[in-house]
């Protein structure tokens, strides 16, 4: 086995034939997902479930009816934003897994800020909440970026620890200083009020978070692939030494990317409050941050690809209920399938450039 190829992995691929490479970039993960679905079908067959039933119900639960689409998109909304928390710093070669913590801090600060300006017109309250949420989430991850750059602290471990710390702070505050005494058996902050909720997209019946996610993903894509800033980040991610030689401000890039990623997760936290929960409580830590990591890796850290991948995973989540109710499969089926897909897609990384079909068109 050879090991030297690692460095030229991503850069080298796009140089040759762009069409073949792009086709490969889409085809391989799709193939991996198909393989994972077949493996999962075989797995449930061991327990006496007909895989065809499985696929039928999964399709029905995720995409089969208008309601299923609503279900899927609702679940996908926070995932796009939390995925960006991993995907943006990943341009610099960093593995950030702190989306959960950034989401929690974002939601918490958005609530606090919203409550502080409660009397203002709804649009102002919502804006203040969004800004506070993005700032809080952004600073939370930028802190990890700063630790990485100035102290050499590994960002994977620090963001992991920050997740636990954020959840502890959340619980401490909503059961103490921020608690609404009327939130009897579910300790929560005061409500931001019905009038300040951002509501649903009228014709779709899904909350506005999905649109925020799509816009954020498109902006992130433009930033990464169509600006000098993004190019600088990608150069630094590919080769840190080269980046320093050409004089890129690596520290600023690290801080900025971490801040932007965290801000996206923070916005997801704000949306969770302003579109779903109305008040901050322990329900904010629902694992969207962790699923976001999965989305980012399946999207190969490409911000734009985070959208369809989040919808795919939202669909798997949406179909989970039907699998429980119709096929008697445990709720953990969703986790098992996600795990298999994740492993398959990662393992498929090794096949880049190995299939002749993608190379035949090249000159």
């Amino acid at each position, binding site marked *: 086995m050879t090991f030297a190829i690692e460095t030229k992995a991503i850069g080298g691929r796009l140089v040759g034939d762009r069409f073949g490479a792009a086709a490969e970039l889409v085809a391989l993960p799709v193939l991996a997902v198909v393989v994972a679905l077949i493996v999962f079908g075989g797995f449930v067959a061991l327990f006496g479930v007909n895989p065809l039933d499985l696929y039928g119900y999964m399709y029905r639960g995720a995409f089969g009816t208008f309601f299923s689409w609503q279900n899927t998109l609702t679940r996908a909304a926070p995932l796009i934003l939390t995925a960006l928390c991993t995907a943006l710093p990943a341009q610099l070669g960093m593995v950030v897994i702190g989306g959960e913590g950034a989401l929690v801090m974002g939601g918490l600060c958005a609530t606090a800020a919203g409550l502080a300006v409660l009397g203002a017109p709804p649009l102002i309250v919502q804006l203040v909440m969004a800004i506070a949420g993005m700032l809080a989430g952004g600073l939370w991850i930028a802190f990890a970026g700063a630790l990485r750059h100035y102290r050499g602290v590994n960002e*994977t471990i620090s963001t992991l620890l920050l997740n*636990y710390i954020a959840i502890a702070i959340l619980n401490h505050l909503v059961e103490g200083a921020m608690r609404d005494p009327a939130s009897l058996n579910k300790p929560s902050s005061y409500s931001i009020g019905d009038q300040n909720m951002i509501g649903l997209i009228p014709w779709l019946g899904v909350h506005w978070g999905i649109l925020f996610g799509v816009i954020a993903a498109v902006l992130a894509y433009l930033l990464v692939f169509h600006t000098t800033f993004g190019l600088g980040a990608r150069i630094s991610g590919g080769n840190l030494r080269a980046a320093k030689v050409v004089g890129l401000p690596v520290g600023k890039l690290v801080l900025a990317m971490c801040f932007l990623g965290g801000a996206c997760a923070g916005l997801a936290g704000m949306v969770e409050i302003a579109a779903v929960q109305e008040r901050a409580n322990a329900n904010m830590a629902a694992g969207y941050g962790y699923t976001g990591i999965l989305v980012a890796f399946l999207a190969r850290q490409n911000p734009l690809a985070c959208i369809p991948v989040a919808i795919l995973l939202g669909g798997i989540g949406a179909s989970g209920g039907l699998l429980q109710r119709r096929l008697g499969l*445990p709720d953990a089926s969703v986790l098992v399938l996600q*795990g298999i897909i994740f*492993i398959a897609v*990662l393992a498929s*990384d090794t096949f880049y450039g190995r299939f002749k079909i993608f190379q035949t068109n090249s000159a």
Partner: protein
Amino acid sequence: MADASSLGFWVVPIAVLGGAVRVSTPFLFVSLGECLTERSGRINLGLEGTLVMSAMVGYGVSYLSGSPWLGVLAAGITGAILGGVHAVICGLQRVNDIAVGIALMLFGIGLAFYLGKPLIQPKANILPAIDFGWWSTIPQLHDALKINVLFLIGVVLAPALVWALKSTRWGLILRTAGESADAARAMGYSVNRIRLRATMTGGFLAGVGGSFLSLYYPGNWNEGLSSGQGITAVALVIFARWNPMLCFWTSLLFGGAAALGPALQSVQITWGYHLFGAAPYFLTLAIMIITCSPKRTLVGAPAELSITK
């Protein structure tokens, strides 16, 4: 029974001591296993999944066979298999070991919950404890000194690993793979094979740690069983500077920290138990901030490790 109130605040250190011994064992085994894996140059973040999956398997085997020791063995083997999967996938070109770890964490937890549903209700035989506190007339101390054999194995294992890594041929090869894959290859060793063995051994140890959760303390199987001990143990290895003996002391520290919150409540210190619960995470982060430096890699860090490069 001695009057509890006469102990006063001594209840706290005794509880922390007992908690350290009770709660630390999974930390100890996972961190020793992860220590081995990381010294070979690879990080396995999937040990949380390994821990949960092997806790379930260990409990199931103990329930079906009636022998908890068979359960421990089965848990270890499960861990080794998951470690093997990690190593094989990471052995492929261009595959990121951190991502594979996260994937296996998800997969291990999911599979454990999936297969473990029928095991939530049954009561399996659990591991016995050895009574080291028979001499004490203070019941609290007596009970803190009821110690499980697995903990004792861990106590022996930590220095044994220090010695093995330092002084055996096997340890030298493993460390070489961790410090410089090229050097290991130049000597004619397959780096992949070395890391496969290290990750499988690490998985085995983590699996044994998982069996401690389900077969001794708390001693049952349910879906909330781990609450992050596996992933904490990975952070703990960095805290312990890849030194098995330090892993041992750090595990005791983290275990004691888990007992601190309830013990403080029992002597009327009731403020902020959520924050006390997160104390190990604050502590690890603080230590990392204090001891890391951008100019050099961490003392003791294997040079091939992706998280320190």
